[in-house]
């Protein structure tokens, strides 16, 4: 290439001198970016490189490439559960029993909330936080209780952040959580089907499949979903060790979570933690396909309504009055 001291009209200067400084500035910039990039990788994208025991890395590697839970065979499900239990032992020295309990046949869970009986004690909230291993640092709560003014049913008119002696005269209390809609807008919105409705009616999230785009959270009309903005922190002695893969296992950061009707309890015939904890018996839970169940009694004999029914989401959570 002929060296020409002046840059021609195309801005293409061919002198050796300027080419050298161009290369230098390029390399300087490149090294800044590379240093920052490797810093990012070291600190962030590869979690806890310090204590990289080979077994842990192998387990994490296998976990990374696994399939969506719904598409797994029974062996794959048991394998991933074994890996997760082992990882919990290795990383946090926790002994957990995870289950992959399948749905019970001919069961569709329904839930009813008695707004005449609720006195706002929030025992349900507290029990849910403990049972489902919710993050204590951000005080994540699946259940919200609103202190409402009689005459208005819209929770936007209520106070969700009260802390005084309850019940207050002339106020009633209403609770919300994920309503496990039959026609859920959230499951439709998920671009990778990381959330779906199980055959027994519970809307679940495969935490490891979720990419954290939060489209489902934007789609939910009831503020039912919570996102793990950071790594959840739970005091070790408060962790519930009986866990379900789709339920109360400890979620990684950057994943969506929500009420699962305590799938780890209901699939072995127990009541959800909120129902069991309620001191006033305002919560009713059962099998909608059983004509003799309590929930069917409520639907048949009580004046029931659902929140934002006009949206057509068909929630399986009713409110009723005595």
């Amino acid at each position, binding site marked *: 290439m002929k060296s020409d001291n002046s840059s021609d009209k195309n801005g293409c200067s061919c002198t050796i001198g300027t080419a050298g400084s161009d290369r230098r500035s390029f390399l300087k910039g490149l090294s800044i970016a590379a240093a920052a990039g490797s810093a990012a990788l070291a600190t962030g994208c590869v979690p806890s490189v310090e204590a990289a025991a080979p077994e842990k890395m192998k387990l994490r590697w296998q976990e990374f490439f696994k399939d969506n839970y719904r598409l797994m065979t029974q062996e794959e499900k048991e394998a991933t559960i074994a890996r997760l239990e082992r990882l919990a032992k290795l990383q946090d020295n926790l002994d957990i029993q995870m289950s992959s*309990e399948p749905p019970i046949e*001919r*069961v569709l869970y329904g839930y*009813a909330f*008695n707004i005449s009986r609720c*006195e*706002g*004690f*929030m*025992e349900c*909230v*507290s029990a849910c*936080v403990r049972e489902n291993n919710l993050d204590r640092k951000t*005080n994540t*709560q699946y259940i*919200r*209780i609103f202190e409402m003014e009689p005459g208005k049913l819209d929770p936007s008119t209520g106070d*969700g*952040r*009260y*802390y*005084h*002696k*309850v*019940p207050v005269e002339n106020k009633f209390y209403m609770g919300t959580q994920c309503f496990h809609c*039959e026609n859920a807008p959230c499951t*439709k919105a998920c671009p990778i089907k990381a959330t779906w409705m199980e055959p027994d009616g519970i809307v679940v999230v495969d935490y490891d499949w979720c990419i954290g785009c939060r489209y489902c959270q934007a789609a939910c009309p009831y503020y039912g979903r919570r996102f793990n903005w950071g790594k959840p922190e739970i005091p070790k002695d408060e962790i519930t060790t009986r866990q379900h893969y789709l339920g109360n296992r400890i979620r990684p950061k950057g994943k969506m979570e929500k009420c699962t009707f305590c799938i780890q309890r*209901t*699939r*072995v*015939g*127990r*009541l959800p933690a909120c*129902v*069991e904890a*309620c*001191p*006033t*018996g305002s*919560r*009713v*839970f*059962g*099998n*909608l*396909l*059983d*004509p*003799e*169940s*309590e*929930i069917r*009694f*409520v639907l048949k*004999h*009580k004046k029931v309504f659902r929140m934002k029914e006009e949206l*057509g989401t*068909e929630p399986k959570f009713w409110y*009723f009055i*005595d």
Partner: protein
Amino acid sequence: MQKILLMYACLFLGLAGVASKSGASETSFLDEIKDIQEKFDSRTVEKVRPVTRETVLAKDQYNGRPFRVLTRKNEINRFKCSNCHTDKAVTVNQGVELTHGSISLNHGREEQALSCIDCHHPEERDYLWDKKGEKIDFNHSYQLCGQCHFRQKRDWLGGAHGKRVANWAGERVIYNCASCHDPHSPRFKKRYPATYSPPLDR
């Protein structure tokens, strides 16, 4: 230009096809549920751990289905009452405060306030009685409460009032009235909530 319009027409038809598949339908899943006739016996749920607390078979039934109720007698400190209350009058100094001093009777509004013997059988202290003079066992106190609170009793039989103990499946065991309501002062006391919801922005 025509090509662009043709492409738009195809896209519109495609989207219309997609849209017609999804969306809110006129029938609700509730209609399908109500048509189901076959019974579901929740005792077939295998993994249910049966309730270990003491229970008794209830004397009432809901829709012909029997259920069990938690016993009450084992919750009462000084049952049997007849240990002290015999035919003779009890002559312990300040006996009322020593044994029943913790009881504050606040049942019913001012004019209709209940007294002790409105529920407790005056002769047979191990039993309660109703206004017809029938003896009612402590374990079956719902028969007494249901006299006045018949609406709540009806709901309790069906499941809209009260709660099952621990399980939604398996044999139906429910709390009895006194499990939740102190029979002498049944109203829930005012208290602070168990927790609070913090502000949602940081």
